[in-house]
């Protein structure tokens, strides 16, 4: 599995006075099994970018290749592409429409032309994967809480068993607990299935713990594309574009400034603990 964006540019309302360049010459290669965080300030083009990954938007210039085939070739099977690259939109709960949760999740696999049994098996598995309890399966999706609706909507895409799962701000509008639950679920799912996951967010804090590659967008362009620790090194540049490195990065930088010789390239609190203990030990155990 490989997904390549080759010099992709995109304009909204092309040819009018309101023309707006949402993507500018974006090049990207996504390989199997990667866990990617796509980060950028509001309006930086994240949602626009992910809609190119499954052919919902067609680049004004440049090409998108999935497994080596140009997805905008006239004979390319877009429907199949969309079953392989599952895209969960921002606020996906707004797309629920069926009378009960279970049928809504069945919508995706049913559209793939699977038989009833397979469809229901997949829907069941997907609902289990997002951690929704059985008692809700036959309720109206509109009676659920925001976080539960969100899970149902994610399950609706998971049920198509995509190879790549793209989540556009899956935690927007959730409380910290709901946010952690969903992100933990996604991380677990990814460990179990080896699925490629792209997590869109505007919070470094959210994704730093999980992903192993961060793509930073700014004004429709890719600003950084690297391992989290490498990206966080540029925390000043990140601040300049309205983002920030995780809090812990700042703490480590401050410690270093105060004279404690710690490794500042860390991304999580656990790593920070290790690094501080190590530095202290090196200092002769003077705690």
């Amino acid at each position, binding site marked *: 599995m490989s997904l390549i964006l080759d010099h992709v540019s995109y304009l909204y309302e092309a040819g009018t*006075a309101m023309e*707006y360049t949402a993507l500018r010459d974006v090049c990207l290669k996504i390989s199997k099994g990667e866990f990617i965080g796509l980060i950028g300030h*509001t309006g930086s083009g994240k949602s626009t970018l992910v809609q190119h990954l499954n052919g919902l938007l067609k680049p004004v210039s440049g090409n998108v290749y999935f497994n080596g085939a140009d997805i905008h070739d006239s004979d390319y099977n877009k*429907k199949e592409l969309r079953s392989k690259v599952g895209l969960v939109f921002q606020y996906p709960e707004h797309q629920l429409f069926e009378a009960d949760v279970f049928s809504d999740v069945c919508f*995706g696999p049913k559209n*793939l032309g699977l038989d009833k049994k397979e469809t229901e098996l997949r829907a069941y598995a997907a609902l289990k994967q997002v951690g929704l309890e059985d008692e809700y399966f036959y309720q109206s999706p509109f009676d659920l809480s925001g976080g539960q609706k969100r899970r149902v909507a994610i399950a609706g895409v998971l049920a198509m068993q995509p190879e790549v799962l793209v989540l556009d701000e899956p935690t927007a509008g959730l409380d910290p607990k709901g946010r952690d639950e969903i992100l933990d679920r996604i991380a677990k799912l990814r460990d179990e299935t080896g699925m490629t996951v792209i997590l869109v967010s505007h919070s470094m804090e959210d994704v730093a713990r999980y992903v192993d590659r961060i793509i930073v967008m700014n004004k429709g362009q890719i600003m950084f594309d690297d391992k989290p620790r490498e990206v966080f090194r540029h925390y000043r540049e990140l601040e300049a574009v309205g983002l920030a490195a995780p809090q812990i990065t700042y703490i480590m930088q401050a410690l270093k400034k105060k004279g404690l010789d710690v490794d500042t390239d860390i991304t999580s609190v656990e790593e920070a603990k290790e690094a501080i203990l190590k530095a202290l030990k090196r200092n002769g155990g003077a705690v």
Partner: protein
Amino acid sequence: MEEQSEEADSLAIWAGCRVGAGSGPVGNEENMLREITLGQYYQTDSVIHRMDPRVKLVTTVCYIISLFIVDNIAGYVIAGVFLALVIRLSRVPVKYMIRGMKSIVFLLIIAAGFNLFLTPGETIATFWKLKITREGIRLALFMAIRLVFLLMGSSVMTLTTTPNNLTDGMEKLLGPLKHLKVPVHEIAMMMSIALRFIPILLEETDKIMKAQIARGADFESGNLIKKAKSLVPLLVPLFISAFRRANDLAMAMEARCYRGGEHRTKMKPLIYKKRDGIAYGVVLIYLVLCVAVGKILL
């Protein structure tokens, strides 16, 4: 620019659109702008844009009437010059206006075609059984010009006036009807809300459609019944969101003690300025000219 988009923004805030949607930093300039422009309004700064909406409404009505008064070349030249001047003053790119015309090309051809071939009179040329007459050419030409001017004239108004301004103007103009117990304010309010929601609903439709396509939905292929069925996943969320929006809006209006038009004052009341007086004068001169040209040449 601030002046014009302000009311539109406040409506959006009422409706809870975007503003406070809950995902971190919100309130993005481009988004706002796009929504307004989708409602056709072309944002720029010009005399015409700043003009009182009442003047523009009255002028548009007068212009349309004038197009039906004149029926000779000279009259159309005057109407054309007037229109060209206004477009020039409005600073809306001509390209932008012409694009709006594309949608009526088909209508135009049919209408002109009928006139061209079906008008009795002195025959000039014949194709099979179709005769082209001198009168036919004249009628077809006038008809086409009239249609184009009519559409351009009214689109100058919508291009240079925000929907909110337009309904404000209408409310004020129709004000006297209040004495006849016509709920003018309510009608104007409803109109401005409806206009304001068109772009929002369009955007919403686009989003839901994409989300369902991402889940393998197919809105294009199949026979009529299948197509109609495929609309369910689009329409249900759309209606739900429309009701939610309406509900939010009602709630927000209630929370701000909205009670209809009674005793309600405006933050920016419409007040005629000098340029509005001048504009009325120009329109009057134009109308007199049109009538005069018709009389003299008759």
